[in-house]
């Protein structure tokens, strides 16, 4: 086989930094709009004689081309080299369609500039996009430069790919509790930037307990299942397994059940999450916790509860299987259990938090304007700096939302190879100071994905990695409907929603 041809065609087909560019394009196309849609409307607490209700509906978001705004207010097209030389940020304005709703009546939609967004070089909205070789050189660019980074205040910044444990998967492992070995099933459930760790564990006495955020300590598995709507013993045990041995374990659990009905179960949870409050509030709080903090990736509506119950059943089953030796401990370092967060995903996280901050500010500005009896105007209430500043400062310092540092790094320009390697770097969020021997190992699943040789020596050894030459990154699926239907076609049964 002529490998040279293969390599050549690969390198010609894909750019060395295409993963960054594709991911960022994805963010521009869908990510931005997704964040806006998640937010929906900006509500205000304005209540006055004329205005009973005032809110702003958020519509479409538009990204412009990178421009520079001079001190005299004039704007002109910006090219990266100019940004580098004049210590500017290579960024484009963001415009959002905002529709004020006064007393339920939609008013005229307005396009408002909500801030400026740093643009990745060679991405969709980059000014270099349609230039040919000669034009690139004329604009002071290296035609061989792969792009894939940003320019913030004149310095080139790379968003280093983050290697994270894949969310929404059940991982079983042994844990130590006071010297006893217990089996636990863990899931990082993720929904829109919110991550919740759900743990189902089988204690030494064989009883299942669940812990999840929003509830301190652990709660009995059966209680939780009943609260979620699987009331009868049969339903609960069916949701776990029809295996006789596992059923035996389940009987032990059912025998020790604390509650018999959904009502009782919710009351029990209410006592935990809002002790000492009125009964009504307790139940309300319990329902809220179940909907929002337990397995949020399955949804946060009441009808999603049954899904959550069945999911917990599966977690319990995995736990029992581990106890019975039918299943091995999950391998956290296996690459199928990893998810790479590329620049687009990171920008989405940052944009979500920054945009939230902006909406809070808009709300505040509107309310203040109202108390001072000024005419409410969408345009004057939006202070674009709130968003721009947040985006820029995070990208300039590398201090990302969620307290992670070193996300944005100064692009290594020691030589061309160093730059390329930097754009293809992957870092693990694990602490540098602890040994973590297994996480630092070269894992066989790195084959073809991560370079077996290139890793720094010293404290970062094995935690900082680089892509293999011919790695190809797959993106998440947008349309899960199709997959679901295919699965049903293969004979998978739908869990009937109640």
């Amino acid at each position, binding site marked *: 086989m002529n490998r040279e041809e293969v390599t050549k065609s690969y390198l010609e087909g894909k750019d060395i930094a295409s993963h960054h560019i594709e991911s960022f394009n994805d963010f521009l196309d869908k990510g931005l709009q997704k964040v806006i849609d998640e937010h929906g409307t900006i509500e205000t607490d304005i209540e006055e004689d004329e205005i009973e209700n005032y809110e702003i509906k958020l519509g479409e978001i538009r990204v412009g081309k990178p421009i520079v705004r001079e001190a005299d207010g004039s704007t002109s097209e910006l090219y990266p080299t100019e940004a580098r030389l004049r210590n500017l940020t290579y960024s484009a304005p963001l415009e959002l369609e905002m529709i004020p709703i006064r007393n339920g009546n939609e008013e005229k939609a307005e396009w408002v500039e909500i801030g400026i967004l740093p643009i990745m070089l060679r991405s969709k909205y980059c000014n270099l996009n349609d230039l040919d070789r000669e034009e690139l050189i004329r604009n002071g660019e290296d035609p061989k430069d792969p792009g894939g980074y940003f320019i913030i205040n004149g310095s080139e910044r790379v968003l280093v790919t983050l290697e994270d444990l894949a969310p929404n998967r059940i991982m079983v492992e042994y844990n130590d509790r006071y010297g006893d070995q217990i089996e636990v099933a863990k899931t990082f459930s993720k929904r829109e930037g919110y991550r919740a760790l759900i743990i189902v564990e089988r204690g030494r006495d064989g009883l299942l307990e669940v812990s999840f955020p929003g509830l301190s300590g652990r709660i009995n598995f059966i209680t939780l299942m009943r609260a979620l709507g699987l009331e009868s013993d049969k339903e609960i045990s069916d949701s776990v397994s029809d295996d006789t041995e596992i059923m035996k374990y389940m009987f032990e659990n059912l025998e020790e059940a604390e509650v018999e009905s959904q009502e009782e179960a919710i009351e029990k949870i209410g006592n935990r999450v809002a002790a000492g409050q009125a009964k009504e509030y307790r139940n309300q709080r319990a329902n809220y916790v179940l909907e929002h903090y337990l397995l949020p990736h399955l949804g946060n509506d009441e009808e999603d509860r049954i899904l959550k119950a069945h999911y917990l059943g599966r977690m319990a089953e995995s736990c029992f299987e581990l106890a019975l030796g039918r299943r091995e401990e999950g*391998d956290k*370092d*296996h690459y199928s259990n990893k998810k790479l967060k590329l620049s687009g995903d990171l920008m989405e996280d940052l944009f979500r938090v920054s945009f939230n901050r902006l909406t809070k500010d808009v709300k505040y500005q509107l309310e203040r304007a109202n108390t001072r009896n000024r005419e409410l105007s969408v345009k004057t209430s939006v202070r674009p700096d709130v968003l721009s500043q947040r985006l820029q400062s995070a990208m300039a310092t590398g201090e990302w939302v969620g307290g992670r540092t070193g996300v944005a790094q100064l692009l290594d320009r020691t030589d061309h190879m160093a730059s390329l390697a930097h754009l293809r770097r992957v870092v693990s969020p694990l602490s540098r*100071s602890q*040994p973590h*021997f297994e996480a*630092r*190992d*070269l*894992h*066989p*699943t790195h*084959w073809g994905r991560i370079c*077996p*040789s290139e*890793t720094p*020596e*010293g*404290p970062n*050894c*094995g935690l900082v990695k680089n892509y293999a030459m011919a790695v190809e990154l797959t993106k998440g699926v947008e349309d899960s409907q199709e997959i679901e239907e295919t699965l049903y076609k293969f004979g998978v049964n739908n869990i009937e929603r109640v």
Partner: protein
Amino acid sequence: MSQPLKKISSINFGILSPEEIREMSVTKIITPDTYDDDGYPIEMGLMDRRLGVIDPGLECKTCGGRPGECPGHFGRIELAAPVVHVGYAREIRKILRATCKECGKLQLTEDEKEKYLEEIQKRIDIGEDPEDVAREVFKEARKKDECIYCGTTKNDIKFEKPTTFKEDGEKLTATDVREWLANIPDKDVRVFGMDPENARPEWLVLEVLPVPPVTIRPSITLESGQRSEDDLTHKLVDILRINQRFQENRDAGAPQLVIEDLWELIQYHVTTFLDNKVSGIPPARHRSGRTLKTLAQRLKGKEGRFRNNLSGKRVNFSARTVISPDPNISINEVGVPRQMAKELTIPLEVTERNIEKARKLVKRGPENHPGANYVERTDGRKQKVTEENCEEIAQKIEEGWHIDRHLKDGDVVLFNRQPSLHRMSIMAHEVKVMPYKTFRLNLCVCPPYNADFDGDEMNLHVLQGEEARAEAEVLMKVQTQLLSPRFGAPIIGGIHDHISGSYLLTRKKTKLEKSEAIELLRKAEIKELPEPTEEESGQKYWSGKKIFSQVIPEDINLTYRGETCKSCETCDEEECENEAYVKIRNGELKTGVIDEKAFGAFSGEILNEIVREYDKSKAINFLNRVTRMSISAITKFGFSIGIDDEDLPKEAENQIERVVENAEEEVDRLIETYERGELEPIPGRSLDETLEMKIMQRLGNARDKAGNIASQHLDPDNAGVIMAVSGARGSMLNLTQMTASVGQQSVRGERINRGFEDRTLTSFEKDDLSADARGFVYSSYKDGLSPTEFFMHAMGGREGLVDTAVRTAQSGYMQRRLINALQDLKVGKDGKVRNTSGEIVQFDFGEDGIDPTKSNRGEAVDLDRIIEDIKEDEE
């Protein structure tokens, strides 16, 4: 400000009482303002001039000192309401729980109190810490439900971080706490281990806050002329403001709720003034959002006063640069770049005898190398010597002046490479000023410093006093460090080419012509040509052994087995075919070849003998000569290694292939028996473990066999073999891996078995236990590895990298703790080891009283040698 010298007789620790604070304070601070409009400190403000001064031109109102002279003086803030000291909150809780709130008595019977008091006294008398007695007192006293003296019910005291106490759900104010504590009788205070003279419990609650002197919280003037205050000053301003407001509100009769809020606020400010990182409350912040660095932060942690400023200091008269090798300077020397020598100086006192020399140095000025940079007159005034004024100053020099002269050849300096893990990491060298910009050092001192030349940098310190120089010369010179106190053998010695060179020189077959012999001897500074050992067709020849013998001191007698020794069952001694039997009689190398064992670092038999029989300078001299001779020899013979040095003849390759194939078959057979369930487990092992062990063993064998075949077919003159055999560098295993087979790769002592489901790589079938599927590398490095082999090799290699990275970090921390624990131990004249308080740690140093440096490889007595000596005497 001058103070009379006083001698400290003892130090007593206690808690500052309000009276003490008032007594030591020079003023009460009442206004939160610092400077008036003219920029002068306000009286009774935080920058009051009685607290000391920092601005040049002002005088301290207390001691009259100027900035830099006056150490500063404490002031005080009279708190309008007492507050709890965060640092003592836990102590307060313990005491509250152990005493009665009505009568203040400790909840123990009088008898018990007596008992504990005695116990505490006993502990103090034998120099032990009475801490755990106090702990027991608190534990016992806490158990009571009601006061055993007055019968008041005792409620549980709840403590809420960081400074709140609650009794039965009711909050206790600091005043309540203070009154409660004040009520405890002195006698009871003693029972829980406090000394009421120096630490009354009520002093744990602050009534008066000491204001630290201005000198420890200096303000800085920014470029814009704006003053920027220290964090502590900011915090004190906060305290003063709230204190004032509290007072005003209370005097105005404000509602209780407001008063309480303000009280909380004082508590918060005082707490954060003391420690801004306590859990439970948000840290105080600067206007810019930066958290303030208050008292505790100044002291704590790596960047704190203790670890950063007291245990670690920065020094002058030091230099640092890259190091490079120079085989031509002595082991005792260090090459110093001329530019550095011009910057580093040694103070020289001008006397009657050296005045001319001093004058000459100053005359040369600061730019010409042996010159001078500064002169200090008799009145202590310093003057910089410049190109312009050097002549003029040179004329003025008188006796009693001091000049700072440049570093020159022969000066003694300290040379150091981090990490300084043992005492040989800092040694004294003689300066040799050289051109270019690197430090030069002899290759023999690389092992003690653990230095190489891949970019290593080292530090140099110039000694400034005669005593220091004398001490360094006697105790720290390289020659004094020849023997390691770690294992009682030379740590300094020849490396790499030194060893290969002498090996080549002293082999039997080496014979040299006259010119060659003379050349080698000249390098070793030997002026006489010995008698030739051979004559062939009129040509005179000298054996390598004869030439080498010239550098061995004359009456050395030594017999040992060298590095090449194969530990045969019966030793052929003189007739050894590997020339491993080294025999030296009267300084003449009779048989054997000189290798790593002879003068290599960490072993060095001959070197060891010379140090012990003669003296250190003789040993250094020997080492200098030997290394120069070997280097000249290896240069003469020529020595190189290339890819064809790893070539094996066809037959050897076939043999190796057969060995490996056999091993593979054996492994397959093992797996088969295992799968049939016929494998017998080794006792104490599971079946799987047994199989793994057996496979590992087979494969290990195979590689060894392949290695043996390879080494049999490699020419003994092969450079790789010479290096491995003589111990210069590398091992036979390395050669085997290059020529025959790399062998089994392992991660954490096991074959590679992690990865995809039931298999390592997707290139293999599931549940494949065979050698290649689990990381056995058949290929040799020279042949090249297959992709799967390469990957498995990378896995094994990664483990090594991670290991070294993790180990250095861990051992560094371990060393730090060890040093902290042992640094004060000292061996007395009586041989006993004591700590600073004079307690005996060991009755005999090392339990045997042996100085390992002077031992024979750790053994106190070298019996073999004594017997050998007696035998020889009889002969």
